[in-house]
Each structure stands twice: as structure tokens, then as C-alpha cells.
């Protein structure tokens, strides 16, 4: 019962706090009156009675506070009082408050946005059961040359049969299918995955409708089956469960729909539209080779088995395989990565660097606000001193100040959260290459993080100025006459230190941004060895069903090139499988017929491109020796190849490459196993803008074995204008064909440098913001110092100091923290440069140009920021300055 009463009392107190305060006042007043009455009746005069009573009573305010202390909500009451007081103080100086909230909002917003990305992409586990036991398997090189090679079908079969460390092992491979239109829908190119039947079991995913694959579906002679992803099912089939059992056409072949995956399932990426069984789709020969590397392997470790143990086991198996196949591209080791790490490890450095940069930005924002608060604390010294003298405890005063800055940071943080939301929308849009981008959103953890950041910022920004004043100063402040010629030294010193730190951090950000910017311009100015302007490309994928002979394929592409060439504005038209700058796509081993047999275990390897006769002209890749393909070298008569310069440099050094023959059994050209004659040598092109040239063999595209190709059109006008006519030309030949990735060459290169450009732009933005903040800080501090020392300056001028002299004096005062900050920042920047070395290209971590430009930028900014207050000081009229006090 008593707890009920207590609860009731507390409830009463909470609601009637105001009335209770009045009643307490009344109660104490009554006591006082009683005492006075008693004193009077003892014979004192009215006045004496009152005074004696008051004396005995003590400090009524303190007494009231002591009584209130026993109330349940007193702490809350005080806190709310402080918050109210803080808000009132902030509202009274709207300029300062708005500025501080904006600065804080920007800092917190950037920080929260990057945290959201890091948390969603790098840290949040994939949504699979026991995902900590899910791993990706790779073939590797025991000498460490290659760590993440995809698996060959035969290797996967061996591992699956022999390894004991895993509960299960599955493979998948990305592929595009031509999904035929039905019921008036257009055909489309569907991104798909071919996978072994057990992949969904392994991941712990069940179908939302229908069923997942069974082992019977995953055989060459099984009925063709397909599983749809949720998105495709909704979009294309209206979410109708009756789709199960229906037939759809993939590459003009009928497949039976057996299931639909749940909406949350977006592995390996959200663009996947459907899944087919891999052993049904790929020939048993391919799936048993140890040399054709093209499968992504996913596995689940047995409970208790570590990655190291599993790697050791796979290494043993793989060494055995290598002994069995000493020739050809067969790896001799294995590598295992946790599944999440495998998806995102390439992004880690970049994202963490950006996150650290936002941390710096936030720290700068905090320091800036602390700096402003120190200035305010200085102007409110008298107020503080009076409050202390009246009995305000130091803890209470500090609490007041901290609460004030927490109010600022909470307001800033709320603004920042909105800002982060916008920034994330933009980021997800701008960086579609980020894996798991679909999982980037603000969730509970992010909100908690934001609250934590707000609290920390408030504490940092509030405690620095609060702790900088101490009790001893207070007495001095009260004693200080109003004619003080040298302002409070302590506050100024603290502000200088804060400024120095701020400038230092700014220098670190500027330098990192400079290094990344230089990397980016280096990347963009790389000459990849071919035409990049006015080139339009689009991918075409001929369906297997209707283009089942080389003759049909060749006829289609010849017709296409012919038609597009007729279009106005087309300067050169060609088809090929791979374009420079698209990254590494395919390589094959080969031997040179004229050379003696290689020692056991050694192989030659070159990138495999297919090109038509017009390819080199259209891409403007110069011919250095020999000739290009000719129009009549097609189908069975295509027994020539062209190589690039690097190929000659590596494999035919000092020999005449023309007339030599290449034997490449795995390449799908008729006479590849007996030897294809090298008829020409072309200049090098780059596969990656940040890479070196690699040897390339161009096989004749019109051998007719490649159904997928890229159409290249070099134009006389803006290339994008050619997209529609070219697509119409394609539809004119085969209306059922889908076209994908209509891109200009510039866009392709842009995509390959998007990471670098993004990092550089973002970091530069952060650096500029912090530079502005530092400049504002310098300006503020120096203006403050000038205002403080007005009288002193007036005396100096009156005593004959020259104005330039005064200006120099003040400039030195302002530039001193900037200089020490610069030195500090440069030292820290060299360390940071080492950390981000892996993100640099063609730029040294200690690039002198970057350091010089950064130092100059900072100094000029600092001088500009200090110039106005210093100039004002030198213009000071001594008479007004002296009279003002």
C-alpha cells in the first residue's frame, strides 16, 4: 500500500510542482510570522521582532532549496530549469545559435551519413541464418600472386567430394538471359544467376511461393526450371501465384517456373532477376574442367571449424589437383573469406577513410563551437562571477553551460539527421556500384549512434569552456576594475590551442583530399590507347535458341553493322566482345607453335578479345605491323589472329611476330587447336585505367562463336543522339532482341573511376568546409583579441606606434595558432598519407606539390581571415578607444 501512496505522492508532485512550490513558500512564511508574533509577545518591538526572527530563520532561499531537495522530481526540475535557461540564452543571441546549430548539423549529418553506410554495408551481417559460418571459396596461388580466383567446375567437384570442413558447398555464376516478351510485354535482358541446386538450402532461404531447386532439377537431362526473384515476379507477372508451373522463354528456350524467392532476398545483388540450375545449363565437360575458372563458390563451415582449418584442408586437396594437372591454368592453393568480407573488402579502405574524414569534420565543428562558447563565456564572466558569489555552486554553473551546448548539439543533430537522410539518398543514387546499397537506410542503431554523437559533441563543446574558468578567477573578475587593459589571458590561450588543433585537422583533410584529387586527375588523364570521345556502345545478347549456328550469328552482326553504318552521323561501326577500360573479362592459355614445348607446369596466358575487321578503326587502335582482319575471313576461313604490342614484348621478344601461330585449345575458333596465324600487331590498350598494359590476343569475331557482343559506333555528332536510331536498326533486324548498357566510352571510363572521383569529391568538400570553419574561427578569435585590447592598442598608437606596426602585431597574434596548426597538421598528414596509400594512383603519399598547395592555401586563407580585424586595429582612433572604457 505504501508504494501506492508513494507513487501517488510522486504523481501529485509531478503535476502540481508549481502549486507545491507556492505552498512551501507559504508554509515557511507562516513559520516566520509565528516566530515574529512570539518575539513580539516577549516584549520586542515589531521591527526588532522581525529582524530576530529572520536572523534565526537563516537564508530563506537556501531553506526552500533544501526542502525542495527532498521532493521526488527535484533533479528533473533543475534539469528542465537549466534547459529552459539554456534555450532562453541561445534565443537571445540568434546569430550565434543559428551558426552553431548549422555547423553542428553539418558535422553530425556527414558523420551519421557515413556511419550509416559503414554500418549497413560493411558491418551489418547478411540476413542469413548463422551467417558467420558462411564463406566464399577461391582458388589461389601459393606464391601469393593471386588470392581471389573464381573456381573451375572440376575443382568445385573435387572440393565438394573431398573436403570435410563444410556442411555444404554451392556454386553460382552470373549470366544474362534474353527474357522473351509475352502478352504484349517487351523482351528484356534479365540479369540472372546459374547456381547449383543446393544454394538456397545452404543460405537457409526457402521459396516464398512454390519451391526451390531439388537435386533432380540440377542435371543436364532434367526439365528446364527457373526460380524468379520477388521483384521480377511482381513487376512482370503481377505477383500472381498462378505463375508456378507456367512456362517462360529464356534465350528462346522454354523454362518452367517452380518458385519465387522472398522479397528480402537480394543476394548477391538486387539486380538479379531469376535463377536457373547450373548443371542443367552448362555442359558436363565445362563443369568438370580444372582450367576454366568461372564459378563463384559459397560454402557453410561445419560448427567449430575455423577458416584456417578449412583453408588448410582445401590447400591439401588443391595441391593434389595441381600435381594431377601440371599444365594449364590450374591453381595450387585455396583462399577463404567470410561471405560478408568477400562482398565488401574492396570498399573497406575507401569507406573507412571517408568515415574518418567525417569524424575529423565533426571534431572541427565541435572545436569551433567550443571556441565560440569560450568567447561567450568570456563576455559572461561577470554574470558567472555574480552567480557564484550568490551561492551558485560550480557544478551547477558547469552543468548549465554543458546543458546549453547539449541543447545546441541536439538541435544540430536533429538537423544533421535530416541532412544525412538527404545525403544518403544522393549517395545511393550516385554510387550504384556499392554492394548492398539496397540495405543502406537509417535504422535504430543509426539513431542511437546519432544520439551518442550529439551527447559527446555537447559534452566536448560544453566542457572545454566550462572547465577553463575556475573559482580563483571569479574573485579576480569581481575585483577587476572596468578599466582592464589586458583581457583574460586564460580564455585567449585556450582559444588559440583550440584553433591550432582545428587548423591541424583541416590540414590533414586538405592534404588527403589533395592526394585523392591528384589520383583522380591522374586516372582520368590516363590514355587508355583508344578513342574515348564520341563513341557510343551497346551490348547485344543473341538468344541461344534462335541463333544456334555460327552462320546465323555472323549474318546478324554483318547485317547490323551494315545498317548502322548507313545512319547519318555514324563515322565508324564495329562489333567486338570487350572494350578497353571495361576491366579484365577473360583470358586463355595458349602455346606458340614455333616455340619448343614449355617446361612442365608453365603456361602462357593472354586476355581473349574477339574483334571484327572494323574494330580497330572504330576504336582508333593503331596498327603497328602486318594487317587487320579482312571481310572474307569469316566462319571456317577465320584462322588468323591479331596481337597487341605487349604480347610481342612478353612472348615474342626480338622475333618477327607475323607468321607465328598460336594454339589455344579452349578458345572457340575452328582451328584454334592446330594454330592460328598472327597477321598483325596493334598498339596497347588498357583493361583498367589504373593498370598496366597486358598481352591481348584478338580472335576473329566473324568466326561466329560469340553470341554476345558490344556494338561500337564512333560518331560525328553527339554520341547519345545515335542511341535511338541504332536501337531501331537492331529492332529492324530482330524485334525480339533486348539491348543493354547503352553507354558512351566516356561513361564506361567514368564508371571505372567512379570510386576515385567520389572519394576525392567528398573529401574535398569536407576539407573546404573545415577550411571555412577554421577561417571563421581565426577571424573570430582575432576580432575578439582586438576588441579586448582596444585600450592597449589605443595607448600604443597614442604613444606613437606606427599603424603598420600595430597591424603586424595583431597579424602575428592571429597567425601564430594557424602556423603551429599547420606544422602539426603536416606532420599528421604524412602519417595519414601512408594509411591511404592503397587508394592512390600515380601519386606519392608525400607528393610535394600537394603539400605545397595545401600549405599555401591554408596560409592565404589564414591571412585573409586575420587581415580585417588586424586592419581594424590599425585604424583605431586612439581617442575614442581610450574614452570608451
Amino acid at each position: 500500500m505504501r508504494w501506492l501512496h508513494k507513487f501517488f505522492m510522486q504523481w501529485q508532485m509531478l503535476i502540481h510542482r508549481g502549486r507545491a512550490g507556492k505552498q512551501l513558500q507559504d508554509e515557511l512564511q507562516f513559520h516566520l510570522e509565528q516566530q515574529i508574533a512570539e518575539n513580539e509577545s516577549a516584549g520586542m518591538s515589531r521591527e526588532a521582532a522581525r529582524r530576530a526572527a529572520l536572523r534565526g530563520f537563516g537564508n530563506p532561499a537556501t531553506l526552500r532549496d533544501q526542502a525542495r531537495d527532498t521532493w521526488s522530481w527535484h533533479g528533473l526540475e533543475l534539469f528542465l530549469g537549466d534547459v529552459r535557461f539554456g534555450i532562453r540564452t541561445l534565443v537571445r543571441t540568434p546569430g550565434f545559435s543559428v551558426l552553431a546549430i548549422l555547423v553542428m548539423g553539418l558535422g553530425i549529418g556527414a558523420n551519421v551519413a557515413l556511419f550509416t553506410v559503414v554500418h549497413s554495408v560493411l558491418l551489418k551481417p547478411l540476413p542469413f541464418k548463422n551467417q558467420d559460418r558462411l564463406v566464399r571459396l577461391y582458388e589461389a596461388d601459393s606464391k601469393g600472386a593471386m588470392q581471389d580466383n573464381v573456381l573451375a567446375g572440376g575443382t568445385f567437384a573435387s572440393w565438394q567430394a573431398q573436403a570435410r570442413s563444410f556442411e555444404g558447398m554451392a556454386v553460382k555464376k552470373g549470366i544474362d538471359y534474353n527474357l522473351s516478351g509475352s502478352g504484349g510485354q517487351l523482351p528484356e535482358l534479365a540479369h540472372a544467376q546459374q547456381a547449383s541446386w543446393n544454394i538456397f538450402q545452404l543460405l537457409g532461404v526457402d521459396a516464398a511461393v512454390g519451391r526451390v531447386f531439388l537435386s533432380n532439377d540440377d542435371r543436364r537431362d532434367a526439365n528446364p526450371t527457373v526460380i524468379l526473384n520477388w521483384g521480377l515476379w511482381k513487376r512482370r507477372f503481377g505477383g500472381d501465384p498462378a505463375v508456378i508451373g507456367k512456362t517462360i522463354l529464356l534465350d528462346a528456350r522454354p523454362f518452367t517456373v517452380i518458385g519465387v524467392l522472398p522479397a528480402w532476398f537480394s543476394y548477391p545483388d538486387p539486380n538479379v532477376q531469376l535463377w536457373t540450375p547450373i548443371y542443367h545449363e552448362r555442359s558436363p565437360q565445362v563443369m568438370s574442367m580444372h582450367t576454366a575458372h568461372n564459378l563463384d563458390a559459397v560454402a557453410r563451415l561445419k560448427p567449430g571449424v575455423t577458416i584456417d582449418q578449412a583453408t588448410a584442408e582445401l590447400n591439401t586437396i588443391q595441391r593434389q589437383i595441381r600435381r594431377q594437372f601440371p599444365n594449364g591454368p590450374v591453381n595450387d592453393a585455396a583462399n577463404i573469406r567470410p561471405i560478408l568480407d568477400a562482398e565488401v573488402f574492396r570498399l573497406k579502405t575507401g569507406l573507412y577513410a571517408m568515415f574518418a574524414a567525417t569524424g575529423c569534420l565533426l571534431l572541427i565543428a565541435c572545436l569551433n563551437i567550443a571556441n565560440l562558447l569560450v568567447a561567450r563565456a568570456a563576455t559572461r564572466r561577470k554574470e558567472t562571477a555574480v552567480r557564484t558569489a550568490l551561492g551558485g555552486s560550480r557544478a551547477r554553473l558547469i552543468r548549465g553551460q554543458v546543458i546549453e551546448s547539449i541543447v545546441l548539439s541536439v538541435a544540430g543533430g536533429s538537423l544533421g539527421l535530416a541532412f544525412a537522410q538527404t545525403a544518403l539518398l544522393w549517395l545511393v543514387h550516385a554510387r550504384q556500384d556499392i554492394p548492398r546499397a539496397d540495405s543502406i537506410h537509417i535504422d535504430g542503431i543509426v539513431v542511437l549512434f546519432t544520439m551518442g554523437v550529439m551527447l559527446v559533441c555537447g559534452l566536448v563543446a560544453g566542457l572545454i569552456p566550462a572547465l577553463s574558468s575556475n573559482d580563483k578567477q571569479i574573485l579576480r573578475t569581481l575585483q577587476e576594475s572596468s578599466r582592464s587593459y589586458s583581457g583574460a589571458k586564460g580564455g585567449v590561450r585556450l582559444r588559440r590551442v583550440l584553433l591550432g588543433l582545428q587548423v591541424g585537422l583541416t590540414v590533414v583533410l586538405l592534404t588527403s583530399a589533395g592526394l585523392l584529387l591528384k589520383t583522380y586527375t591522374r586516372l582520368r588523364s590516363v590514355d587508355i590507347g583508344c578513342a574515348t570521345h564520341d563513341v557510343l556502345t551497346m551490348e547485344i545478347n543473341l538468344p541461344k535458341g534462335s541463333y544456334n549456328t555460327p552462320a546465323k550469328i555472323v549474318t546478324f552482326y554483318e547485317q547490323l553493322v551494315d545498317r548502322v553504318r548507313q545512319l547519318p552521323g555514324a563515322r565508324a561501326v564495329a562489333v567486338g566482345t570487350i572494350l578497353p577500360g571495361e576491366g579484365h573479362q577473360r583470358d586463355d592459355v595458349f602455346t606458340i607453335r614455333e616455340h619448343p614445348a614449355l617446361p612442365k607446369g608453365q603456361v602462357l596466358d593472354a586476355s581473349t578479345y574477339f574483334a571484327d575487321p572494323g574494330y580497330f578503326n572504330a576504336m582508333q587502335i593503331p596498327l603497328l605491323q602486318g594487317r587487320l582482319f579482312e571481310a572474307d575471313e569469316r566462319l571456317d576461313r577465320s584462322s588468323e589472329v591479331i596481337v597487341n604490342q605487349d604480347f610481342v614484348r612478353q612472348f615474342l621478344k626480338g622475333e618477327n611476330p607475323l607468321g607465328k601461330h598460336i594454339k589455344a585449345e579452349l578458345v572457340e575458333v575452328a582451328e584454334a587447336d592446330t594454330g592460328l596465324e598472327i597477321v598483325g600487331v596493334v598498339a596497347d590498350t588498357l583493361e583498367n585505367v589504373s593498370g598496366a598494359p597486358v598481352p591481348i590476343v584478338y580472335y576473329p569475331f566473324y568466326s561466329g562463336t560469340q553470341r554476345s557482343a558490344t556494338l561500337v559506333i564512333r560518331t560525328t555528332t553527339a554520341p547519345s543522339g545515335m542511341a535511338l536510331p541504332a536501337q531501331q536498326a537492331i529492332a529492324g533486324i530482330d524485334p525480339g532482341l533486348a539491348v543493354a548498357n547503352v553507354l558512351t566510352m566516356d561513361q564506361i571510363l567514368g564508371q571505372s573511376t567512379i570510386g576515385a572521383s567520389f572519394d576525392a569529391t567528398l573529401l574535398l568538400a569536407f576539407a573546404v568546409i573545415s577550411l571555412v570553419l577554421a577561417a571563421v574561427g581565426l577571424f573570430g578569435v582575432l576580432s575578439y583579441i582586438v576588441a579586448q585590447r582596444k585600450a592597449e592598442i589605443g595607448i600604443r598608437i597614442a604613444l606613437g606606434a606606427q599603424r603598420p606596426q600595430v597591424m603586424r602585431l595583431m597579424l602575428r597574434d592571429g597567425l601564430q595558432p594557424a602556423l603551429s596548426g599547420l606544422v602539426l597538421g603536416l606532420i599528421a598528414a604524412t602519417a595519414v598519407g601512408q594509411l591511404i596509400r592503397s587508394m592512390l594512383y600515380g601519386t606519392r603519399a608525400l607528393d610535394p606539390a600537394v603539400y605545397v598547395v595545401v600549405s599555401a592555401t591554408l596560409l592565404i586563407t589564414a591571412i585573409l581571415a586575420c587581415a580585417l580585424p588586424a586592419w581594424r586595429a590599425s585604424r583605431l582612433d586612439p581617442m575614442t578607444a581610450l574614452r570608451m572604457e
Partner: protein
Amino acid sequence: MGKPSDLVQGTLDLLILKTLSIEGRHGWAIAKRIQQISGEVLQVQQGSLYPALHRLEQQGWIKAKWAESETGRQAKFYSLTAAGRKQLDSETTHWARLSGAINLVVQES
């Protein structure tokens, strides 16, 4: 008057509860009563009295109501609750044991 005769820590609550066990009183009367009964030995300072009264009220041992005082002015009268009566009993027992023990020690030496 120097410091009030130091009340043994925690005994003020007992004194207040005891004073209120006879009849409800306002704060001034409680202080007066304690002073009179103790033969002017125990001086209850306002600085201790009112915080103590409010604390006891929060605890639910005494309750307060506003009523007219003997001078006709509105005053806050405190009285014991049932829980307060129980608390008084237990504190009295406790005090008896404690003071008895102290007496034994003091007289022994």
C-alpha cells in the same frame, strides 16, 4: 545560540513522528513542542525541520492538510498516517535498544 544541540543522526524523524502521534500540528508547533518537552535542550532548526517534514511526507509516513491555525491564518498541518504509526513503533523500539545499549556502555566505564 550556537549550533543546535546536535540531534543524534536520524532521531529528528523519530521526534517528529512522536510529536505528531498525539495530534496533528503545523511545522512551527512541532518545533516548539519538541523544544518545550525537552526542556529547551533540543532546538530544531528550520533548516532541518522542513526538509525532514517534506521527506517524511514523500515517504508516506505523515500527511499534510491546510487548515486554519489558532491565529486564524491558513497553515499546513501534519498528522501521522497508519504507515507512520508503524514506523514510529519500529523507530521507538530501535531507539530504546540503541539508547539502552549506549547507557550500558557509558555507565560501565
